[in-house]
């Protein structure tokens, strides 16, 4: 009977699933943040946490245990030298899952999984990347926070667009607007 078996199967057989989870852990270690479906994020989290715990112990034996699970020595190197020391004082809970809007196309629930200690750094680096890619528009994005009036003006522009999207899903546009006004 399938009682009390809580791990998500994710449409894969065991070996396939373990390989995918190992790859996702390695991606998370290398990039500090991964955007994926909520189900996969939740499935990866316990594996990541156990790997960080191995990293905190830090001996050659624990390093080999981590390699045997992850199969990528470069990722284990980053884990042991960079990520584990940052989380040395944290008693578990090394990762954070943030829910995103549903994916367009299949309406899958999406989420970000990231290391708690690294989250702000990732956002900062993505800001820099955006600033390099498109100098002017990226700057306006960062200025939204301090300038309340500007934020409201932009929000007013955003509202009709959002409503148009919602109305497409809804049958009657007037009905949708009434609910939003209420």
């Amino acid at each position, binding site marked *: 009977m399938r009682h009390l078996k809580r791990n998500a199967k994710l449409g894969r057989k065991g070996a396939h699933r373990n390989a995918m989870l190992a790859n996702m852990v390695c991606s998370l270690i290398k990039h500090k943040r991964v955007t994926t479906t909520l189900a996969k994020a939740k499935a990866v989290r316990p594996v990541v946490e156990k790997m960080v715990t191995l990293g905190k112990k830090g001996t050659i034996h624990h390093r080999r245990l981590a390699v045997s699970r992850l199969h990528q020595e470069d990722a284990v190197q980053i884990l042991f030298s960079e990520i584990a020391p940052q989380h040395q004082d944290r008693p578990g809970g090394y990762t954070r899952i943030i829910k*995103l809007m549903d994916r367009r196309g299949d309406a899958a629930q999406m989420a970000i999984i990231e290391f708690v200690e690294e989250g702000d750094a990732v956002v900062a680096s993505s800001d820099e990347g955006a600033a390099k890619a498109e100098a002017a528009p990226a700057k306006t994005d960062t200025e939204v926070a301090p300038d309340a009036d500007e934020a409201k003006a932009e929000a007013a522009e955003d509202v009709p667009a959002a409503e148009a999207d919602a109305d497409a899903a809804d049958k009657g546009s007037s009905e949708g607007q009434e609910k939003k006004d209420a």
Partner: protein
Amino acid sequence: MGVPKRKPSRSAQRKRRASNSVLNLPQLSVCPQCAAPFVPHRVCPACGHYKGRQVVNIEAY
């Protein structure tokens, strides 16, 4: 076996189909950062903030 005694009237048929095909708008909140409507417990799609923190850079997407 039990068999329906009567064919459902057009009215009953339409009422069943109407009530079973209603689309509901998701419950929305107003983003404290940018005042755009967003789904609670999700990152605001307009400004990329969540719990007072810039989580996603919208321009980068």
